[in-house]
């Protein structure tokens, strides 16, 4: 006696048999089945184990509300953990496993936990294992948790789309279809999204006639031309100003195409026709496999031709379950219907169809080890299991406790809810601006009302009238009101409220007794309404029991907050294409291919993919850096500096504007001259450094550091627009337009001499000139980041590779060596040149770097000036930039090591090491750092102790300029 497939009927294709495995057993279903319907038709009753007690659980629902049937699904190379069996379309070859059980859900060794249930009340883990949770956690975790995530990378593809529409209709049930139809007729652009495989919603299994056609046939033809229908698409989130997040699953996507698409839809107006979800009733033993939602039973029967049981009991407190009872009877099952209401008029129709009706009855217990075998019934006012008057054999108990409207999106968008006593449900108090509500979400219970509301909402959303009649259906017979009934008042019995999280009525009563009276506290203490189903079936029952226990009205208890997503969204869909090399695409140098071909070790620096160094065969990176550094000091090196910013500032007020933006004086710079300058934030903190070139009286070229260029441009723009709107100045970032190579070393000028028309003898340090290089118009700036005589040669970016090769060829007789970012970083450290963000941090002021001149000399009120006069900036004990000569000349200290002072309380930090190298030029270790009162320590020739991970070393505090302190080589 169990569920079976009917010989005919349903929306399945019996000619297409699909084989799959369930926990190793070979089973089969048909095209048109979900995993759940195929399992049900195959006689599988236990589809999962409950989260906490490992109780056997069967199917409750037929769609997204399903709390129990969480399974791992593998198909070919793709894996989906924690899939809901009710929403996964069956495909041939699926390998399906139950979760949270060992070895499988049918025989789970942890099932013994259920025997200890009286010792595992709400808050058990917290009360028992805190404060030493970390000791117990590994073993507890091993018993808990759901699906297994494969370690292999996800092979599926994901994509994202954006769309606009006049009207977004959420839900393609009767109300949504009527709304889309009306809005489209009114001329609106319409997107209609529904999470099911086909439009129609409940029309797929509830018998009715619309416009003279069977409802399912009407639904299939109801979507008019021009409406963009998104099937398999869940609207999971509602955000500000009618922005919606949609997840489209494309199960039939060809290999290599996106399996899921994330949509961002901005709608002029939205119609929420999201329907309602059937609630369980809370009674003893209501979690036994075989206890199902009455609506789901009807769904499986009509859509999948699966009869969920031969001997059915139906328990209801409202009229809606009668359709399922009658359908079960007509399909050949014996049916006994227990109605909590005393004398419902609808009973007559059921009895006529052969259903035995027991009015004023309730289920007092269920019996069966791994599935339902018997049901005890008694009067609906019973308070003891001994009041049972009838025991019937049953393999199916179909339950309806009323309907909870799917108010999630309304609530996410900021909509308020009100408790409606007649519907016994939380309903939207009023639609949000720009949103319209239609169908069961409003509490409407009959088809005619849903269709009329949908039609009206579609027209209202379109904002125009349309020459189209609303869909017509026979008005419903007046329904008998639902009888609110929240649990059987038997104290000791276990009555389940939240199937997914194993929360019982007793747990809620206990929580209330421990004063968790706020619904938000109740949720967190008992886990009611958490996890993947987010309380879709359990919320209202839980709130009602809390209200009853604390002597309040349900309206006064309220609900927890609804937050996106409505159903789980895969991380893959959220990431979309933003992973791997597309996560944050590297910027590549215009001569990138030259570096790669030369065997450069390429690394990422502030978003740029640049050569770190150019190791030769058999050479380590460290060896390459030393060799390159020596080549620059002794002869000549070649460095790709193309990533350095090239920001042109133009206009009659360029000088005045830059004098406000920069810390250093730049207005008195003569055309053709270059100056090193800092740029500060209003807080006085050093934001960036670089050289400023005056190209012409009204034209400057700035060279911010590679990773700060866009930030500097944004900052200059902000100042230009908001603080200096009257100034005639324009800012262009031309970084990508030119390739720039630094030719550095005592023989640099010899390399360039034959290649350019510019007279290098007339180009002293910190000047620039324009001319041709290799016959192409370009510019040469004489600036140095190495301490050597150095020329930065710039040509349009298209010439990058040719120029790079020409410079290498011209330099070959002089032993030219390309050098990378790491080598450059070493060479600049020998000269005590700072690297922003390496030697400086979010607390560094210009005076800390020894640059106090502009503050004294400049009269302009530049950015950050006032902050440099604050008491904090004037403290005598600020950290200052220093050089450090370690006692151990062979070993550089660790970057981040602290300079410490010993005090009575222990050690106190004086600052830290910011850069450290072995200097080939000095033949010893060197370091840079920020140390408290550093300049006084230099003057005194003091030593400091350096602390790193328990080790102490010593270093002498010296000037940061280790190499060529007089700067003779720069001018050489």
């Amino acid at each position, binding site marked *: 006696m169990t569920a079976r497939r009917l010989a005919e009927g349903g929306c399945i294709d019996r000619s297409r048999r699909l084989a799959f495995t369930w926990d190793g057993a070979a089973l089969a279903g048909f095209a048109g089945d979900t995993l759940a319907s195929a399992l049900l038709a195959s006689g599988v009753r236990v589809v999962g184990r409950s989260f906490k007690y490992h109780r056997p659980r069967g199917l409750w629902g037929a769609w997204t509300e399903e709390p129990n049937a969480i399974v791992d699904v593998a198909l070919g190379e793709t894996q989906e953990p924690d899939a809901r069996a009710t929403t996964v379309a069956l495909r041939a070859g699926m390998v399906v496993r139950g979760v949270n059980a060992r070895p499988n859900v049918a025989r789970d060794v942890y099932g013994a936990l259920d025997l200890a249930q009286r010792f595992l009340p709400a808050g058990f883990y917290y009360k028992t294992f805190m404060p030493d949770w970390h000791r117990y956690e590994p073993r507890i975790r091993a018993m808990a948790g759901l699906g297994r995530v494969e370690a292999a990378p996800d092979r599926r593809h994901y994509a994202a789309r954006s769309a606009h529409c006049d009207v977004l209709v959420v839900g393609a049930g009767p109300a949504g279809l009527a709304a889309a139809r009306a809005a489209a007729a009114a001329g609106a652009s319409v997107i209609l999204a529904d999470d099911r495989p086909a439009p129609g919603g409940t029309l797929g299994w509830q018998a009715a006639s619309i416009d003279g056609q069977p409802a399912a046939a009407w639904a299939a033809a109801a979507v008019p031309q021009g409406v963009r229908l998104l099937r398999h698409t869940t609207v999971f989130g509602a955000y500000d100003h009618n*922005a919606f997040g949609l997840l489209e699953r494309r199960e039939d996507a060809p290999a290599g195409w996106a399996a899921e698409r994330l949509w961002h839809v901005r709608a002029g107006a939205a119609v929420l026709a999201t329907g309602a979800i059937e609630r369980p009733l809370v009674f003893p033993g209501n979690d036994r496999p075989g206890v199902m939602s009455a609506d789901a039973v009807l769904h499986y029967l009509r859509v999948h031709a699966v009869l969920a049981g031969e001997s059915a009991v139906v328990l209801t407190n409202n009229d809606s379950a009668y359709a399922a009872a009658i359908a079960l009877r007509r399909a050949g099952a014996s049916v006994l219907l227990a109605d909590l209401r005393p004398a419902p008029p609808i009973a007559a129709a059921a009895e006529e169809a052969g259903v035995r009706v027991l009015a004023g009855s309730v289920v007092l217990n269920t019996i069966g080890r791994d599935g339902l075998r018997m049901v005890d019934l008694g009067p609906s006012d019973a308070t003891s299991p001994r009041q049972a008057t009838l025991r019937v054999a049953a393999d199916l108990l179909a339950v309806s406790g009323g309907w909870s409207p799917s108010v999630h999106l309304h609530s996410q968008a900021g909509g308020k809810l009100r408790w409606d006593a007649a519907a016994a449900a939380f309903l939207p108090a009023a639609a949000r601006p720009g949103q319209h509500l239609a169908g069961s979400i409003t509490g409407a219970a009959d088809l005619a009302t849903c269709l009329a509301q949908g039609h009206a909402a579609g027209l209202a959303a379109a904002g125009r009238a349309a020459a189209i009649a609303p869909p017509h259906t026979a008005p419903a017979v007046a329904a008998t009101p639902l009888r609110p009934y929240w649990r059987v008042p038997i104290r000791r019995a276990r009555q389940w409220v939240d199937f997914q999280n194993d929360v019982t009525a007793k747990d809620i009563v206990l929580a209330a007794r421990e004063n968790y009276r706020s619904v938000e506290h109740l949720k967190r203490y008992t886990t009611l309404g958490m996890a993947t189903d987010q309380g879709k079936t359990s919320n209202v029952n839980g709130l009602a029991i809390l209200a009853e226990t604390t002597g309040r009205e349900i309206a006064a208890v309220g609900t927890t907050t609804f937050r996106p997503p409505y159903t789980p969204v895969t991380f893959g869909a959220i990431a979309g294409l933003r992973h791997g090399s597309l996560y944050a695409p590297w910027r590549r140098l215009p001569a990138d291919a030259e570096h790669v071909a030369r065997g450069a070790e390429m690394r990422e620096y502030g978003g740029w993919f640049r050569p770190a160094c150019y190791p030769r065969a058999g050479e380590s990176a460290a060896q390459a850096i030393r060799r390159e550094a020596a080549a620059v000091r002794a002869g000549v090196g070649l460095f790709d500096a193309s990533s350095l910013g090239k920001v042109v500032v133009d206009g009659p007020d360029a000088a005045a504007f830059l004098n406000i933006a920069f810390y250093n004086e730049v207005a008195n710079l003569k055309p053709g001259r270059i100056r090193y300058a800092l740029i500060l934030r209003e807080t006085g903190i050093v934001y960036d450094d670089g050289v400023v070139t005056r190209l012409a009286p009204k034209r400057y070229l700035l060279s911010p550091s590679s990773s700060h260029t866009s930030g500097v441009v*944004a900052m200059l723009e902000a100042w230009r*627009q908001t603080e200096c709107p009257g100034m005639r100045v324009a800012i262009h970032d031309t970084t990508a337009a030119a390739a720039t190579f630094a030719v550095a070393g005592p023989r640099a000028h010899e390399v360039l001499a034959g290649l350019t028309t510019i007279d290098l003898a007339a180009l002293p340090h910190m000047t620039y000139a324009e001319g041709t290089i290799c016959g192409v118009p370009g510019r040469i700036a004489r600036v140095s980041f190495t301490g050597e005589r150095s020329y930065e040669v710039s040509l349009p970016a298209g010439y990058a590779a040719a120029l790079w090769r020409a410079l290498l060829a011209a330099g070959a007789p002089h032993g030219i060596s390309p050098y990378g970012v790491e080598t450059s970083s070493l060479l600049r450290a020998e000269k005590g040149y700072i690297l922003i963000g390496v030697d400086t941090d979010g607390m560094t002021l210009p005076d800390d770097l020894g640059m106090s001149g502009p503050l004294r000399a400049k009269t302009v*009120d530049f950015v950050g000036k006032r*902050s440099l006069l604050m008491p904090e900036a004037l403290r005598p004990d600020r950290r200052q930039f220093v050089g450090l000569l370690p006692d151990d000349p062979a070993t550089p200290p660790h970057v981040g090591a602290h300079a410490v002072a010993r005090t009575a309380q222990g050690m106190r930090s004086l600052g830290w090491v910011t850069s450290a190298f072995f200097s080939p030029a000095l033949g010893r270790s060197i370091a840079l750092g920020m140390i408290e009162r550093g300049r006084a320590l230099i003057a005194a020739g003091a030593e400091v102790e350096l602390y790193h991970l328990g080790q102490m070393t010593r270093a002498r505090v010296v000037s940061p300029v280790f190499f060529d302190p007089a700067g003779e080589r720069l001018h050489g």
Partner: protein
Amino acid sequence: MLLITCPWCGPRSEPEFSYAGEPVMRPGPAEAVSDQSWADYLYMRRNDKGPHQENWCHAGGCGQWFMLERDTVTHANLRTQAPA
């Protein structure tokens, strides 16, 4: 995700914009500003509940700065205004 009406480009989605907080008058000249009023300028904001003026920049569009008045309770965008 707000829908913001750029004074130059019309209604656009929030990811195109960058936010820069409340407009604050920069006090000056530096020598005439007290420590307290400079600290207020740097760090203190009204953070109003209700209508609230904010600087935004259409960074992913025209690059222009403008003022947006927004209700911080309802998220209703009340008006936008280009700089004078």
